[in-house]
């Protein structure tokens, strides 16, 4: 799996992501600076990592979404290439129009930095084929703006097309509608062709038993398996 991790000023989770990719795929990810206009030839997976690009100025992800490299990401995605957008990356993907909706300030104004439970909504995607639909995983979140909002029509469409990837839930899989204010407890969504996944939680931080739970591993294993198939 040839992965490219995008780096913007103010991004700070790119090394966690690169480490997880190396650990699970065995291959070093390319780190791509935002002023580049091309992805490395043969890139299978583009990762937009977490952090605080441009200090969250204007709106979270708004300035990074207009960086030169994003044109190349759009081209990659249009051809069906895989894109994983985590946390600030999810905000950037929404601002860039790769995914619908927007992530607003958490409803209770709190920065949520904790481990959460996510319910896996479907297992027939390149990102989640290693999980069982309906199962619950534990992963950390760290965000102040993860409150997913879209107009009623977009939400109906996402639900109708089964494009919700993960929902905030309790340990036994009961959806938690009050976690951060997200509509329908949405923690992550897929693009129409299921080749882009955006999510607020950090699966890359739960991949190594040294750290604790390893529930995030299967996401990366799913990608490796998809690309090997």
């Amino acid at each position, binding site marked *: 799996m040839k992965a490219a991790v995008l780096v913007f000023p103010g991004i700070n989770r790119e090394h966690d992501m690169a480490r997880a990719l190396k650990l699970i795929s065995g291959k070093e990810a390319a780190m791509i600076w935002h002023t580049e206009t091309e992805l490395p030839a043969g890139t299978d997976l583009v990762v937009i990592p977490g952090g605080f690009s441009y200090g969250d100025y*204007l*709106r979270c992800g*708004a*300035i990074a979404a*207009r960086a030169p490299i994003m044109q190349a990401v759009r081209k990659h995605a249009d051809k069906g290439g895989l894109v994983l957008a985590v946390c600030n990356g999810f905000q950037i993907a929404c*601002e860039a129009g790769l995914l*619908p*909706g*927007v992530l*607003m*300030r*958490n*409803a*209770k*104004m709190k920065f949520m930095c904790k481990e959460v439970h996510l319910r896996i909504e479907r297992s027939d995607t390149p990102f989640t084929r290693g999980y069982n639909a309906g199962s619950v995983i534990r992963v950390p979140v760290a965000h102040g703006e993860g*409150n997913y*909002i*879209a*107009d009623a029509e977009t939400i109906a469409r996402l639900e109708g097309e089964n494009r919700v990837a993960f929902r905030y839930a309790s340990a036994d899989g009961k959806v938690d509608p009050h976690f951060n*204010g997200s509509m329908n407890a949405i923690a992550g969504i897929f693009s129409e062709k299921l080749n882009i996944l955006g999510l607020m939680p950090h699966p890359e931080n739960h991949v190594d038993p040294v750290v604790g739970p390893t529930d995030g591993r299967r996401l990366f294993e799913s990608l490796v398996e998809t690309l090997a198939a």
Partner: protein
Amino acid sequence: MKARVIVTLKTGVLDPQGKAIESALKSLGVEGVESVRQGKIFEIEVAGADRAKAEAKLKEAADKLLSNTVIENYRVEIL
């Protein structure tokens, strides 16, 4: 030419920051505040003297970057 772009949240979009400000005003004893919605004002200097052209440029700026039209409205004022 001086201009302003004013960006506000669309009606119906929840504004947690506005809510927090509203309750802070209430606890400060500022009476009669019924609700607060937070927005942004951009003060922009535009080259040239053609108002229509400036307005078109600023609309482009607002559409491309200054506002997110999923949740926000904007208006342009040439001063």
